């Protein structure tokens, strides 16, 4: 558990998915003291989400063909000295120097019982994963329309299906995995609707040939789908969801190369649920808040720019897994181990084991090349905004429609997501643009020469909402750091009275004391 206030951890790892666990294990086995923080009670992150023990699932791994490998990794974590800090919601990370960091987190479940915790460390490894990218369409707010990854997560953690007859749509390799999981769990999947063509992969034969496991994976999903008679429709999209209280059908329309809907090709498919997703977006806000350099991935997301040893551009801060670009759990595990070894080498002042590092770097580069090829093949085309009507809600938190956004672009001169946000409130709500960010950026870019997905290194100084009472109860900066902040005294919070007459006027020389 938490150690004395005077002694920071060597390494704080944020995120207990494959990258974070691999990093924590490697660093811990190399002799570092490690804190591994995650918002969840479980390890595994999004990918290895599994039912809570209370559900008494007999075969939690049935939905994970990589479960044995993950179980081995988890076993090493359990055998290590790393402290696994569960249910820690990190809201910001501050840097006092290259080897003095503070991770600010809230503990406890969402709701009342939460209290602030500060973890100090000499280095930080960000393994915060990715979230789903959403592109809106008319009807996407209907009950029964769920995120593709969300549908899979529901299945993996709660063993529940979002419906009985589920259309899977969007773009990216996740769709096949989702469709085969849903079908295997007993749902009828009338169609898998993929906006890109799988032919895109053929342009990267080398990346395919050097990553045979990916072909096997695709073949496995393919055979499941074949067995369940699921039809994959490529170069098509769900351009509207129909229903009153709940989705009852979707319109599937052919797309051209630029993802523009082809008029007259729409047809209805009846369903009681739609699982839709357009790939994943790296979660980088903790890093961009610290000024880390980013790069643009081939599918238009913003990922952290990392060097050969997983270092970010800010000394003392490492990253692994999807934060550096979406690439799957095997890549995340390799990057996590590489980062863990690199941090240990740096803090101990001795070189990392050369052979192992070289091997990990080779594997990482090979899998990164494949990830980039996949990203390029599934990059949203600029024409998708053609299926948005002016009254399609884009930002659900603030109820901002596509028409509002278009007016800000054409009428008020907004050319980027931030200005659209300032002028329309799109992205200012509870989710802080995590849901609408990609769509707003595309609509804003419609007014520019680029006309495609622009980079959007979004700043979210608060990674999760923080109660004001918690913020107010932080220990004062000038005081020595304490492991647990003291409760604030009501008197101390009283604003001190000063005399306005002396320094009030602009010409007055106020005494700042």
């Amino acid at each position, binding site marked *: 558990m938490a150690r004395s206030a005077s002694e920071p951890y060597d390494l704080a790892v944020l995120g207990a998915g494959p990258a974070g666990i691999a990093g924590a294990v490697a660093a811990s086995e190399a002799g570092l003291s490690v804190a591994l923080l995650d918002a969840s009670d479980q390890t595994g992150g999004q990918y290895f989400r599994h039912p809570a023990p209370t559900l008494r699932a007999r075969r939690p791994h049935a939905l994970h063909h990589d479960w044995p490998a993950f179980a081995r990794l988890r076993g090493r974590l359990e055998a290590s000295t790393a402290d696994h800090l569960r249910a820690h919601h990190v809201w910001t990370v501050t840097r006092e120097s290259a080897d003095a960091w503070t991770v600010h987190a809230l503990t406890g479940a969402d709701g009342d019982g939460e209290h602030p915790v500060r973890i100090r460390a000499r280095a930080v490894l960000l393994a915060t994963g990715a979230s789903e990218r959403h592109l809106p369409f008319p009807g996407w707010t209907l009950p029964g329309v769920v995120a593709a990854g969300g549908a899979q997560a529901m299945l993996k953690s709660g063993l529940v299906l979002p419906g009985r007859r589920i259309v899977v749509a969007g773009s990216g390799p996740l769709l096949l995995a989702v469709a085969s999981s849903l079908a295997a769990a007993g749902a009828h999947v009338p169609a898998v609707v993929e906006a890109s063509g799988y032919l895109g992969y053929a342009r990267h034969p080398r990346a395919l040939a050097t990553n045979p496991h990916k072909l096997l994976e695709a073949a496995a999903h393919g055979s499941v789908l074949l067995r369940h008679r699921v039809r994959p429709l490529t170069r098509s999209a769900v351009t509207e969801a129909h229903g009153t209280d709940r989705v009852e059908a979707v319109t599937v329309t052919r797309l051209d190369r630029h993802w523009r809907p082809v008029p007259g090709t729409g047809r209805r498919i009846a369903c009681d649920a739609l699982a839709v997703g357009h790939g994943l977006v790296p979660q980088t806000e903790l890093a961009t*808040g610290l000024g880390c350099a980013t790069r643009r991935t081939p599918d238009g997301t913003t990922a952290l720019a990392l060097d050969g040893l997983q270092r970010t551009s800010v000394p003392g801060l490492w990253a692994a897994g999807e934060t550096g670009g979406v690439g799957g759990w095997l890549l995340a595990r390799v990057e996590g181990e590489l980062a863990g070894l690199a941090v240990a080498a740096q803090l101990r002042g001795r070189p990392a084991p050369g052979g192992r590092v070289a091997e990990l770097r080779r594997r990482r580069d090979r899998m990164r090349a494949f990830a980039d090829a996949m990203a390029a093949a599934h990059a949203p085309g600029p024409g998708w905004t053609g299926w948005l009507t002016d009254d399609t809600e884009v930002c659900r938190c603030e109820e901002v429609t596509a028409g509002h956004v278009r007016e800000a672009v054409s009428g008020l001169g907004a050319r980027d997501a931030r200005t659209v946000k300032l002028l329309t409130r799109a992205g*200012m709500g509870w989710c802080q643009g995590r849901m609408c960010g990609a769509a707003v950026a595309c609509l804003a870019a419609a007014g520019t020469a680029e006309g495609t997905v622009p980079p959007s290194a979004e700043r979210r100084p608060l990674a999760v909402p923080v109660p*004001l009472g918690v913020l107010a109860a932080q220990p004062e900066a000038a005081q020595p750091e304490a492991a647990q902040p003291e409760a604030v005294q009501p008197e101390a919070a009283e604003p001190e009275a000063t005399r306005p007459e002396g*320094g009030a006027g602009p010409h007055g020389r106020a005494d700042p004391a």
Partner: protein
Amino acid sequence: MARSVQCEILLTVPQSNSSDVADVIVVGAGVVGAACAYYAARSGLSVTVVDRGPVAGGTTGAGEGNLLVSDKGPGPELELALLSTRLWREMEDGVPAASEYEPKGGLVVASSGTAMDALRHFARAQATAGVTAHEIEADRLREKEPHLAPGLAGGFHYPQDAQVQPALAAARLLRASGARVRTGSEVTAVLTGPGGEVRGVRTPSGDLHAPHVVNAAGTWGGELARLAGGDLPVLPRRGFVLVTEPLPRVVRHKVYAADYVADVASDSAALQTSAVVEGTPAGPVLIGASRERVGFDRTLSVEALRRLAQGATALFPLLAGVRATRAYAGFRPYLPDHLPAIGADPRVPGLLHACGHEGAGIGLAPATGLIVARLLTGAEPPLDVKPFDPGRFPAAA
């Protein structure tokens, strides 16, 4: 013959077409630049606005939209604020409504008897300068703000204080001005003639020509002055604003503690915070007003947020259980004497400055724009502009 005519044209209007020529170029598409464009265009001038970023991309987009008279003692800034207050109210073209203009009034509260005495003294002086302020006794504070903390010594209500959504205000003013707007276009040089007089500006996408250039570059106004061969000591003062989840209207006015006034006028580089708390039409409560001199560093300061949260929850205890969903930082442009620079540059003919409004730019924008328009057309300014003379600072060595 034809050839010589061509040469003559080239000599008089070098490399230009009509869209690159205007009466005045305003550098800066923030609220001050937009107000300059608005009043200049209403005076019959053709205006081009150029900005390296988007509309309201700098300090304007990071502001709260305070239109305050309550925090200013008698003096030139208060005169500017009072004129602006009237101009915001009277503005045409639907700008106020489209900018969420709200004459909500301010409530300044004192936590002790001493502070209340000081506030009373301050309000009395303000009244002589035309500020309306009503004393609110301690037991009646909650009629104005039902959720205020108990135990406060009293306060003053300032009905002239108001609020706009600053980015919308800038965008709507620009649109109403009809000015040509070139965003994403950085000024890399100020073009001058043989006598050193301004001829226009250079941007990566071409030269723009005008006999007048208005420097409304805000915090970056010093850089633009240097490009033109002038000098203006504008420096950044960082501020954080905390934003809560949307709430029903629990805060009705702009509410702040009396010590805010001293912070605004302070010369200290150290972090100062005094919470200014206000609700917005959209629901979130804004908590503003940390001030520190740290250059252009955007890194989140947990200490600044702590003090803002502490100040806000001290005023409104019910906010302790409310979540902050975001925070943002901006850089207030300030000059050594905390007054803006409005008027002609002393060394560069044709260059006018309209920057350095510190944390009050949203409020002071209309009066600034009106003064600039009057100066450009040779008309009488609406008030004494001597205190804002950009030439009042000793030139840098």
